[in-house]
């Protein structure tokens, strides 16, 4: 993979990212890029650091080393007299408002209906009018197949429905990048399909996506680029055919073998 210093096509550029929790090094020098319109899938065993990496991309986790650029801009820090200083809450929030994040456990706001969940940030962060936000929200809820559930509270929805509302909520901010953190891992098996279908549709529409998942079928079909992580480093990356069919890497093969047995 070629690494140009500045590339207008790069949505995410991670350089040598290091993250520690106490004495534990979770990410040990991770570098990769995500091009505009690309779907990058990160796979790997639990504890490999893939979720942490994703959370670093919208600064839900601070990094201890390296750099992350979003759309050409340094994330979370600015240069002051040649030193890196943590950015203000306002600046970080502005970047986050352009990045959609879908959580493993949905994290819908339980005191709001599905519709209220979707219009909350457009109204209070983007300062859209209620009418404008509601109109867009209804389009998005229809898109994820939940128009008729607009006035339901989250606890009246199935896990799959909740996750689809969460995706609509993220899309309502018109993000230029969507991050999916094991979006289907908390779902009953029969509900996984409906969420993957929405994700596939987004990918087809050209959304730039970084997806952490255990769904190898999805990775194989939808990913433009697959990253295999283990113990805080990228072990192997490449197009899905290479990683899934022709890997020469021992650890990748062992991991895929374990997944297939399940």
């Amino acid at each position, binding site marked *: 993979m070629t690494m140009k210093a500045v590339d207008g096509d790069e949505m995410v550029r991670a350089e040598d990212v290091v993250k520690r929790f106490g004495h534990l090094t979770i990410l040990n020098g991770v570098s990769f890029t995500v091009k505009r319109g690309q779907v990058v899938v990160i796979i790997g065993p639990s504890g490999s650091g893939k979720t942490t990496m994703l959370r670093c991309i*919208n600064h*839900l986790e601070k990094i201890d080393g390296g750099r992350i650029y979003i759309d050409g801009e340094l994330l979370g820090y600015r240069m002051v007299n040649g030193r890196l200083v943590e950015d203000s*809450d*306002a600046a970080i*929030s*502005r970047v*986050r*408002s*352009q*990045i*959609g*994040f879908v*959580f493993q*456990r949905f*994290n*819908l*706001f*339980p*005191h*709001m209906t599905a519709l209220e969940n979707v219009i*909350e*940030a457009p109204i*209070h*962060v983007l300062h859209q009018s209620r009418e404008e936000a509601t109109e867009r929200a209804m389009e998005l809820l229809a898109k994820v197949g939940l128009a008729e559930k607009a006035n339901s*509270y*989250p*606890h*009246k929805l199935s896990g799959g429905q909740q996750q689809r509302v969460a995706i609509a*909520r*993220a899309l309502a*901010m018109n993000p230029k990048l969507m991050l999916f953190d094991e979006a289907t891992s908390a779902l009953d098996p029969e509900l996984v399909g409906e969420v993957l279908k929405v994700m596939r549709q987004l990918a087809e529409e050209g959304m730039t996506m970084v997806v952490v998942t255990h769904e190898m079928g999805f990775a194989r079909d939808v990913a433009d680029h697959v990253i295999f992580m283990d113990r805080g480093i990228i072990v192997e990356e490449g197009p899905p055919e290479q990683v899934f069919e022709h890997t020469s890497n021992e650890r990748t093969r062992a991991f895929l073998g374990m997944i297939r047995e399940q």
Partner: protein
Amino acid sequence: MSLWQIIVKFLFSTLFLQAAWRTLWISVVSQTFGVIIGLILALMRMSRFPLLSWPARFYIWLFRGSPLLVQILILYDGIPQVMPSLTKYLTVYSVALIAFSFNEGAYMAEIIRAGITSVDPGQMEAAKALGMRYPLAMRRIVLPQAARVIVPPLGNEFNNMLKTTSLASIVGLFELTYTAQVYGSQDFIIFQLLLVATVYYLLLTTLWGYVQGWIENRMDPDRSTRNELLKQKGLAERLFGFGSARVGGTLVSGR
């Protein structure tokens, strides 16, 4: 006049109606300020900046660790001795309001902190991920959910406050208790008038119990289950809280 005649006579007297009104408004104002002080303290206490969290810890330690009666006396008798210029501001009313509000603030701080802590951290993360800043996320996402945990103990605090105001009798504020004491000892009817005061306290706390139940019911985003529970409870149970949990006792955010 018989014992009962005296009780009935004073029960409907303007003297006691006024005293009850004083008890009520002092309670409402003190509780309101207590909640405001408590919210500020709770947010300070949870801050990662020691400059904010330590003063809050100190405040809570000080006001929860010393008797309210002593705090009242320090304000009314102690401060005027060392700072005579403040005496004119320290009337019975201002002393009562300051002491009750500040003291209540310390207790509310811990209740509000527990409420905020009870909200799934994922909620704050989801709000942040949508580009919401801390104050907005707190106000729109975290506090409304924390409120459902905060309101039941807040109701108990207010019930307590209605009765705690009787401590203001020590500085001669004519709330229910002091009124009963003063007029009772004048005419040797102290027993009767203390009973009258008791009836008023019970009336106020009982009415509050209803208001509290109504508020908690309103706060449930999905009221149908709550209303069914309410229907199953008899009048006596709701009034006096016999048997099972108080109306709206369990409030758990969405599954």
